[in-house]
Structures are given as C-alpha cells and as structure tokens.
C-alpha cells in the first residue's frame, strides 16, 4: 500500500473537533482510512482562519456564513457539515425569559459580538414578536467566557451563549430560557440547521478528493463513537474541561444533539432559508453583496 496521505488540520484546543480527532486516533480510525493527520492545536477559532488563509492548514472548522462571505469576496472556499450545535439564552430562572417581551429592558449578554449568527437569529425571532432586542434590551457584548462568568456573578440577567458554555452554565444551575433550535424552527427551518463545518479550498478538494471522502467518513465514525460508546467518551471526558461526571454528561447531551443527521440536500435548503433571514438583519456587513445563499459552497464529493 502507498504511504498514508497527509492532511493538515488546525483545531481549536478546547473544541469538539479535537475530541473527535482524539477518539479517531485512539481507535486507529485514521490509519484505517489511510490518512496521516497533522493537527495544529490553536487557542482561538480566529487563529484557524489565519492558518487557512496563510496556507498553514488544509482543513479548519468554521461556519458557512463566513464561507459564504468569503466567496462573495472572491475566495472560493468550500464547506462540509460538521455540527448543528447552537447555543441558547441562559438564565438563572429560565421560565422568566421565554419570550422576547421578557427580555425588554433586561441586561442581556451576547457572546461573539453583533454579527454572531445566534444573535442575528435571536433578533429575527424577537422582531417576529414585535420586539427589537437590539434597542429594547440592554445588550452587553463580550468574550463568551467572560459573559458566562458575569452571568454567574449576577451582573447579567440572561446571556446568549455558545453551546459549550451553555453546558457549563447548566452545571451551575442555569437553564435554557430560549433554545436557538426552537428559534430556527420558528424562523422556517425544518430541522436543526448546520452551523459549523469543515472548510477548505477547492484546490485542496481537487487534489485530495478521495482522501477527503475517507476523512469525512472517519469523522462520522468518531462522532458516532463519542455519542454512543461510553468507553469512547470516557477517553475524551477530560477534554471537556469539566471535572465531574454530571457536568460531562450534560456536555455530552449537548454534543449528541449537535450531530447532523439530515441528508445534505435538506441541510442546504434549511441553510438557504435561514440565510435570507440573517442577510436581512446582518446586512452587507455580514454577507457582502449577496442576498441569496451561494449553494455551491456546500462541497459535494465528485
């Protein structure tokens, strides 16, 4: 057999991509797939983008909105689904903040900044209920970790967080006031919509098509193992950053919910539907010129 083909990956150190790769290695899935995976762990998601643009990595994890934007700006990147995991509005007493009207005049933390897609979805959801959250709630942007801490301190009434932080907040007794999955449905998606995916250049896809296919299959296997095999999850439980089993179980529940299940075509349709909503709220700043999703961004194996 020929030598294993090399794929260079940039991962975010605390993210789920890392868990999956660890499991894949532990179970020898990479060797089985004939792949040599060279991973660069980075501290932030943005660092991955530097890696890809600078040519330091073949595949990174990012969201399709960004890919759509880059394509609009002339960088024809490709995207393949990884996870549907979305965050939620977390609060000490979740029941008190279940509708948009409940958030009016409240101090709402928003992780990821004004162009974060969860936040845009939440705004669209609010507008449907006749509430302009951006102006009617007291918005505090900040780093997700800092906002989680501030919510715990009681400085915020509620916070829109990424799902990994939602899980940690749940271990501290906070609950989901508004789940973004419900928001998506409310806005016209049929099932949980893809959020993150593998991003790479067409040149790489053309060069390494078969290896890429084997890579995706391998990742799917790893995801399945984490979701279903307790022994596999035990191997990476330490990477969740939570010390106790109860917390880890919560994270795993979130993780499981994020594993994509739909066929690619229905994912694309849902994404296109949401894109219109996002484009309207986020404006050209977010999406560039296009108002329709450029569906060619979704990679289909040749």
């Amino acid at each position, binding site marked *: 057999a020929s030598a294993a083909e090399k794929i260079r990956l940039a991962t975010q150190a605390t993210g789920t991509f890392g868990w999956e790769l660890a499991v894949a290695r532990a179970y020898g899935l990479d060797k089985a797939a004939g792949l040599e995976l060279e991973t660069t762990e980075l501290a932030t998601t943005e660092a991955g983008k530097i890696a890809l*643009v600078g040519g330091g990595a073949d595949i990174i994890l990012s969201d399709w909105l960004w890919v759509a934007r880059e394509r609009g700006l*002339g960088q024809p990147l490709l995207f393949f689904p990884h996870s549907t995991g979305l965050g939620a509005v977390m609060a000490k007493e979740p029941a008190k903040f279940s509708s948009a009207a409940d958030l009016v005049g409240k101090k709402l933390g928003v992780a990821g900044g004004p162009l974060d897609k969860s936040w845009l979805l939440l705004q669209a959801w609010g507008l449907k209920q006749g509430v302009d959250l951006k102006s009617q709630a007291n918005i505090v942007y900040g780093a997700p970790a*800092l906002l989680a801490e*501030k919510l715990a301190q009681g400085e915020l009434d509620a916070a829109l967080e990424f799902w990994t932080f939602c899980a940690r907040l749940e271990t501290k007794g906070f609950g989901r006031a508004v789940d973004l999955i419900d928001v998506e449905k409310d806005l016209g998606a049929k099932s949980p919509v893809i959020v993150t995916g593998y991003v790479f250049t067409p040149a790489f896809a053309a060069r390494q098509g078969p290896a890429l296919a084997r890579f995706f299959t391998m990742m799917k296997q790893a995801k399945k193992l984490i979701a279903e095999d307790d022994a596999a999850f035990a191997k990476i439980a330490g990477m969740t950053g939570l010390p106790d089993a109860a917390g880890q179980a919560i994270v795993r529940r979130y993780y499981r919910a994020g594993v994509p299940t739909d066929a690619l075509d229905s994912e694309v349709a849902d994404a296109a539907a949401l894109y219109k909503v996002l484009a309207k709220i986020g404006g050209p700043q977010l999406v560039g010129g296009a108002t329709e999703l450029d569906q060619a961004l979704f990679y289909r194996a040749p």
Partner: protein
Amino acid sequence: MIRLFSLGLFLLAWQFGAMTLGPHHLPAPAQVAATFADEWRSGDMPLNLGLTLMRVLAGFTLAMIAGSALGLALGRKPALDRLLDPWLVIALNTPALVVIILAYVWGGLNEISALAAIALNKFPNAVVTLREGARALDPALDEMAEVFAFSRWRRWRDVLLPQLAPYFAAAARGGLALVWKIVLVVELLGRPNGVGFKMGMAFQLFDLPLLLAYALPFVALMVVAETFVLRPAERSANWWRRHGD
C-alpha cells in the same frame, strides 16, 4: 518636505506589496480607503473612533501622571524603590489579559473597569522609564537650585523637567502607542463599541480591509500629531542642545 516624500514612499510600498501578494493577503490602500469611507458614512467610524480616542486619552493621562510621579519618587528615594520594586516588577510583567479580566471580574463590565485596566497596564511602564530618568538627574544642578532656594515649582519646571524631557518623550511616544494597543484589547474583551470592538468583529469575519480601515486612522492621527505638534515642540525645546553651529 521630506516627511511627505517618506509617507508617499510608504504608500507606494504598500500598493506594490498589495499587488504582489494579492488582495487576500494584503488589501490595497484604495480598498482600505473605500472601506473607511463606507464606515465613515454609516456613522460607525466616527462613533467608535471617537470613543476609542477618548479612552486612549483618559487612560494615557491617568497612567502618565501617576506613573511619572511614582517613577520620580522611586528614582530619587532608593529606600522607597527597594520597597516597591518587587510590586513594580509584578505589575510590569502581569499579562494584559490577566489584568483586563481581573478588572472586569472585580469591577463589572463597565467603562470604569475598562479605564482602570488601561491605566494599570501602562502605569508600570511610565514608572520604569521615569525612574531611570530620575536616577540620571545631575546632582550638581540640584545643589545649585538648593543654594539659590528655588521654589518647588521652579525647581520642577526649570531644573528637573528639562533633564527628564527625553525620558518623558520616550515614555509618551512609546506609551501612547502602548495605551492604544491596550485599549484595543480592552474593547475586544468587554466593550460594546470602540475600534477594538470593531476590529474584533473584522477579525472574526477575517475581513482584512475592515481591520485595516479601523486600525489605520489612529496611526494616521499619530503621524499628523508627530509632524505638526511633537516635532516642532521638540525642535524649539532642544535649541540649546545644538550649541549654535
């Protein structure tokens, strides 16, 4: 004027670099300028730039005044210096991230915590520089001022300040740049506006033209300030150095 020529050269080099590297690795000046114009028209640029400038000025003033005062005291009183030096070294080397996070955690996500974090980050630098200045003061002139019973104010303005001027210049030039950089991080981590906040967004989108459009106005401002304020002021203040030939 030679400075204009030098700036032109810089723009040329930039343009040339952009053409060789491609717009994805380095956006061309025109592209950045267009992005800037868009942001200005939308009102985002004036607002955020203004806020950032205010934070820079406030943080800088606070840190320079307090830092210089302490630096001078430490430079002139070795006993005090021995006592406070370890604290200073700690303050100097504590990463900005830690200071900013702690400030936000203790003081809340608000403007006052932000300003405190900014000032605290710059403060030890000013202390260190001015302390060196104070140590290098000429005791002969001090004695002269003592004998002729100079008032505190005259001693400060006419004897000490001119000797410290180069240290102030170094602390101020380096310090303004440092404060501006810290303000960016402070805004990135916990403010809903300002250039740092906007640059964080641009960074998330990996939008280099937007990033540069927000990064460069302050740079341009400093070039202007250097050309029309700092340089001429220094030239006249330093006449005596040129020994008239």
